[in-house]
Protein backbone atom coordinates (compact mmCIF):
# COMPACT_ATOMS: atom_id res chain seq x y z
CA UNK A 1 0.00 0.00 0.00
CA UNK A 2 1.32 3.39 -0.95
CA UNK A 3 0.05 6.86 -1.82
CA UNK A 4 2.19 9.53 -3.46
CA UNK A 5 1.23 13.11 -4.34
CA UNK A 6 3.94 14.71 -6.41
CA UNK A 7 4.85 17.23 -9.13
CA UNK A 8 7.26 14.87 -10.91
CA UNK A 9 6.24 12.39 -13.58
CA UNK A 10 6.44 8.69 -12.71
CA UNK A 11 7.96 5.64 -14.44
CA UNK A 12 4.89 3.49 -15.11
CA UNK A 13 6.80 0.28 -15.88
CA UNK A 14 8.97 0.53 -12.77
CA UNK A 15 6.02 1.33 -10.51
CA UNK A 16 4.01 -1.64 -11.78
CA UNK A 17 6.99 -4.00 -11.57
CA UNK A 18 7.48 -3.13 -7.88
CA UNK A 19 3.85 -4.07 -7.15
CA UNK A 20 4.38 -7.70 -8.11
CA UNK A 21 8.13 -8.33 -7.64
CA UNK A 22 8.79 -11.25 -5.35
CA UNK A 23 5.14 -11.88 -4.45
CA UNK A 24 4.17 -15.19 -6.06
CA UNK A 25 0.70 -15.15 -4.54
CA UNK A 26 -0.30 -12.56 -7.17
CA UNK A 27 -2.30 -13.87 -10.12
CA UNK A 28 -3.33 -10.52 -11.62
CA UNK A 29 -2.37 -6.84 -11.65
CA UNK A 30 -4.81 -4.23 -12.95
CA UNK A 31 -3.75 -0.63 -13.51
CA UNK A 32 -5.23 2.60 -14.81
CA UNK A 33 -3.32 5.66 -15.99
CA UNK A 34 -5.07 8.99 -16.57
CA UNK A 35 -3.48 11.27 -19.17
CA UNK A 36 -3.87 14.91 -20.23
CA UNK A 37 -6.01 15.09 -23.37
CA UNK A 38 -5.53 17.95 -25.80
CA UNK A 39 -9.27 18.50 -26.08
CA UNK A 40 -11.30 20.36 -23.49
CA UNK A 41 -14.93 21.40 -23.10
CA UNK A 42 -15.65 25.13 -22.93
CA UNK A 43 -18.40 26.81 -20.90
CA UNK A 44 -20.79 26.47 -23.86
CA UNK A 45 -20.10 22.74 -24.08
CA UNK A 46 -18.00 23.07 -27.24
CA UNK A 47 -14.83 20.99 -27.66
CA UNK A 48 -11.69 23.02 -28.18
CA UNK A 49 -7.94 22.39 -28.20
CA UNK A 50 -6.24 22.92 -24.87
CA UNK A 51 -2.55 23.64 -24.60
CA UNK A 52 -1.97 22.51 -21.02
CA UNK A 53 -3.63 22.20 -17.65
CA UNK A 54 -2.75 22.81 -14.03
CA UNK A 55 -3.83 20.66 -11.10
CA UNK A 56 -4.25 22.29 -7.72
CA UNK A 57 -4.79 20.23 -4.56
CA UNK A 58 -5.30 20.54 -0.80
CA UNK A 59 -2.02 19.37 0.79
CA UNK A 60 -2.69 17.26 3.85
CA UNK A 61 -6.31 16.49 3.06
CA UNK A 62 -5.31 14.97 -0.31
CA UNK A 63 -2.95 12.41 1.23
CA UNK A 64 -5.47 11.63 3.99
CA UNK A 65 -8.29 11.01 1.48
CA UNK A 66 -6.14 8.92 -0.87
CA UNK A 67 -4.95 6.76 2.02
CA UNK A 68 -8.53 6.28 3.14
CA UNK A 69 -9.63 5.28 -0.38
CA UNK A 70 -6.77 2.77 -0.60
CA UNK A 71 -7.59 1.34 2.85
CA UNK A 72 -11.22 0.98 1.83
CA UNK A 73 -10.17 -1.00 -1.26
CA UNK A 74 -8.13 -3.38 0.89
CA UNK A 75 -11.11 -3.88 3.19
CA UNK A 76 -13.40 -4.71 0.28
CA UNK A 77 -11.10 -6.98 -1.75
CA UNK A 78 -8.31 -9.44 -0.88
CA UNK A 79 -5.46 -7.40 -2.39
CA UNK A 80 -1.78 -8.27 -2.38
CA UNK A 81 -0.57 -4.76 -3.26
CA UNK A 82 -1.85 -1.38 -4.41
CA UNK A 83 -0.61 2.04 -5.41
CA UNK A 84 -1.99 5.52 -5.99
CA UNK A 85 0.19 8.23 -7.53
CA UNK A 86 -1.41 11.59 -8.29
CA UNK A 87 0.52 14.51 -9.75
CA UNK A 88 -0.23 18.22 -9.34
CA UNK A 89 1.09 21.35 -11.01
CA UNK A 90 1.24 22.19 -14.72
CA UNK A 91 1.08 19.41 -17.32
CA UNK A 92 1.07 19.33 -21.10
CA UNK A 93 -1.13 17.18 -23.33
CA UNK A 94 -0.02 13.55 -23.30
CA UNK A 95 1.45 13.67 -19.79
CA UNK A 96 0.50 11.14 -17.12
CA UNK A 97 -1.69 12.62 -14.34
CA UNK A 98 -2.62 9.69 -12.16
CA UNK A 99 -1.87 5.99 -11.66
CA UNK A 100 -4.00 3.56 -9.66
CA UNK A 101 -3.16 -0.13 -9.49
CA UNK A 102 -4.19 -3.20 -7.51
CA UNK A 103 -3.00 -6.81 -7.48
CA UNK A 104 -4.66 -9.91 -6.12
CA UNK A 105 -4.63 -13.70 -6.37
CA UNK A 106 -7.57 -13.43 -8.79
CA UNK A 107 -8.28 -11.07 -11.66
CA UNK A 108 -11.80 -10.04 -10.65
CA UNK A 109 -10.61 -8.56 -7.34
CA UNK A 110 -7.75 -6.72 -9.08
CA UNK A 111 -10.11 -5.25 -11.70
CA UNK A 112 -12.82 -4.19 -9.28
CA UNK A 113 -10.41 -2.68 -6.76
CA UNK A 114 -8.58 -0.71 -9.47
CA UNK A 115 -11.86 0.58 -10.90
CA UNK A 116 -13.04 1.47 -7.40
CA UNK A 117 -9.81 3.38 -6.65
CA UNK A 118 -10.15 5.71 -9.63
CA UNK A 119 -13.94 6.14 -9.26
CA UNK A 120 -13.68 7.13 -5.60
CA UNK A 121 -10.62 9.29 -6.17
CA UNK A 122 -12.53 11.23 -8.85
CA UNK A 123 -15.13 12.49 -6.36
CA UNK A 124 -13.36 12.28 -2.99
CA UNK A 125 -9.78 13.49 -3.49
CA UNK A 126 -9.41 17.30 -3.32
CA UNK A 127 -7.90 18.11 -6.72
CA UNK A 128 -9.04 20.80 -9.15
CA UNK A 129 -8.13 21.16 -12.81
CA UNK A 130 -7.82 24.39 -14.72
CA UNK A 131 -7.30 24.12 -18.46
CA UNK A 132 -5.70 26.66 -20.76
CA UNK A 133 -7.06 26.99 -24.26
CA UNK A 134 -4.81 28.02 -27.14
CA UNK A 135 -5.46 31.72 -26.50
CA UNK A 136 -4.22 31.31 -22.92
CA UNK A 137 -7.70 31.65 -21.38
CA UNK A 138 -8.19 29.54 -18.25
CA UNK A 139 -11.28 27.36 -17.69
CA UNK A 140 -11.88 25.57 -14.41
CA UNK A 141 -13.02 22.06 -15.27
CA UNK A 142 -16.51 21.32 -13.96
CA UNK A 143 -17.30 18.18 -12.01
CA UNK A 144 -19.23 15.63 -14.09
CA UNK A 145 -22.44 13.88 -13.07
CA UNK A 146 -21.04 10.69 -14.60
CA UNK A 147 -18.27 10.73 -11.98
CA UNK A 148 -20.83 10.97 -9.18
CA UNK A 149 -22.72 8.06 -10.71
CA UNK A 150 -19.50 6.04 -10.98
CA UNK A 151 -18.88 6.64 -7.28
CA UNK A 152 -22.50 5.75 -6.42
CA UNK A 153 -22.10 2.36 -8.05
CA UNK A 154 -19.71 1.28 -5.30
CA UNK A 155 -22.19 2.21 -2.57
CA UNK A 156 -24.62 -0.45 -3.71
CA UNK A 157 -22.35 -3.33 -2.69
Amino acid at each position, binding site marked *: MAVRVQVEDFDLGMELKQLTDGNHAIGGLCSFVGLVRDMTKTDDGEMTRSAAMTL*EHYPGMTEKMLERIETEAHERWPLESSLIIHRYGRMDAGEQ*IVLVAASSAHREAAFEACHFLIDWLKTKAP*FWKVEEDESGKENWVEARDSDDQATERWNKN
Partner: protein
Amino acid sequence: MKILYFAWLRQKIGTGEERKDIPANVTTVSQLVDWLRSEGDHYADAFKDTSAIKVAINQEFADFNATVQSGDEVAFFPPVTGG
Protein backbone atom coordinates in the same frame (compact mmCIF):
# COMPACT_ATOMS: atom_id res chain seq x y z
CA MET B 1 -9.84 30.33 12.50
CA LYS B 2 -7.77 29.17 9.53
CA ILE B 3 -9.78 29.49 6.31
CA LEU B 4 -8.64 28.00 2.99
CA TYR B 5 -9.94 28.63 -0.54
CA PHE B 6 -9.21 26.53 -3.61
CA ALA B 7 -9.65 26.77 -7.39
CA TRP B 8 -11.88 29.65 -8.58
CA LEU B 9 -12.83 30.51 -4.99
CA ARG B 10 -9.15 31.22 -4.31
CA GLN B 11 -8.98 33.37 -7.44
CA LYS B 12 -12.15 35.36 -6.63
CA ILE B 13 -11.20 35.95 -3.00
CA GLY B 14 -7.59 36.70 -3.91
CA THR B 15 -5.93 34.48 -1.34
CA GLY B 16 -5.64 30.74 -0.70
CA GLU B 17 -5.35 30.95 3.06
CA GLU B 18 -6.12 33.43 5.80
CA ARG B 19 -6.55 33.57 9.58
CA LYS B 20 -9.66 35.35 10.83
CA ASP B 21 -11.13 36.12 14.24
CA ILE B 22 -14.71 34.97 13.96
CA PRO B 23 -17.57 36.64 15.91
CA ALA B 24 -18.94 34.54 18.79
CA ASN B 25 -22.36 34.19 17.14
CA VAL B 26 -20.85 32.39 14.12
CA THR B 27 -21.18 28.71 15.05
CA THR B 28 -22.03 26.94 11.76
CA VAL B 29 -20.57 26.87 8.24
CA SER B 30 -23.66 28.69 6.91
CA GLN B 31 -23.21 31.48 9.47
CA LEU B 32 -19.51 31.65 8.58
CA VAL B 33 -20.38 32.08 4.90
CA ASP B 34 -22.94 34.80 5.72
CA TRP B 35 -20.37 36.62 7.82
CA LEU B 36 -17.67 36.29 5.12
CA ARG B 37 -20.09 37.78 2.53
CA SER B 38 -20.31 40.88 4.73
CA GLU B 39 -16.50 41.17 4.75
CA GLY B 40 -16.27 42.52 1.20
CA ASP B 41 -17.49 42.34 -2.38
CA HIS B 42 -14.99 39.66 -3.45
CA TYR B 43 -16.32 37.39 -0.68
CA ALA B 44 -19.92 38.20 -1.64
CA ASP B 45 -19.08 37.40 -5.26
CA ALA B 46 -17.26 34.14 -4.43
CA PHE B 47 -20.06 32.91 -2.16
CA LYS B 48 -22.93 34.12 -4.40
CA ASP B 49 -24.09 30.57 -5.20
CA THR B 50 -23.16 28.08 -2.48
CA SER B 51 -24.84 25.18 -4.30
CA ALA B 52 -21.57 24.81 -6.25
CA ILE B 53 -19.36 25.05 -3.15
CA LYS B 54 -18.12 22.24 -0.91
CA VAL B 55 -16.69 22.62 2.58
CA ALA B 56 -14.21 20.64 4.66
CA ILE B 57 -13.63 21.12 8.40
CA ASN B 58 -10.24 19.98 9.66
CA GLN B 59 -9.70 18.19 6.33
CA GLU B 60 -12.96 16.22 6.49
CA PHE B 61 -15.88 16.84 4.12
CA ALA B 62 -18.73 18.53 6.04
CA ASP B 63 -22.20 20.03 5.57
CA PHE B 64 -23.09 23.73 5.65
CA ASN B 65 -24.98 23.19 8.91
CA ALA B 66 -21.93 21.64 10.60
CA THR B 67 -20.52 23.37 13.69
CA VAL B 68 -17.32 25.43 13.42
CA GLN B 69 -15.02 26.61 16.19
CA SER B 70 -12.28 29.19 16.35
CA GLY B 71 -9.48 26.57 16.30
CA ASP B 72 -10.80 24.84 13.17
CA GLU B 73 -9.29 24.69 9.70
CA VAL B 74 -12.20 25.37 7.32
CA ALA B 75 -11.75 24.95 3.55
CA PHE B 76 -14.09 26.07 0.74
CA PHE B 77 -13.80 24.73 -2.79
CA PRO B 78 -15.79 23.69 -5.88
CA PRO B 79 -16.60 20.00 -6.49
CA VAL B 80 -13.32 18.13 -7.03
CA THR B 81 -12.07 17.36 -10.55
CA GLY B 82 -8.93 15.28 -10.12
CA GLY B 83 -8.00 11.93 -11.60
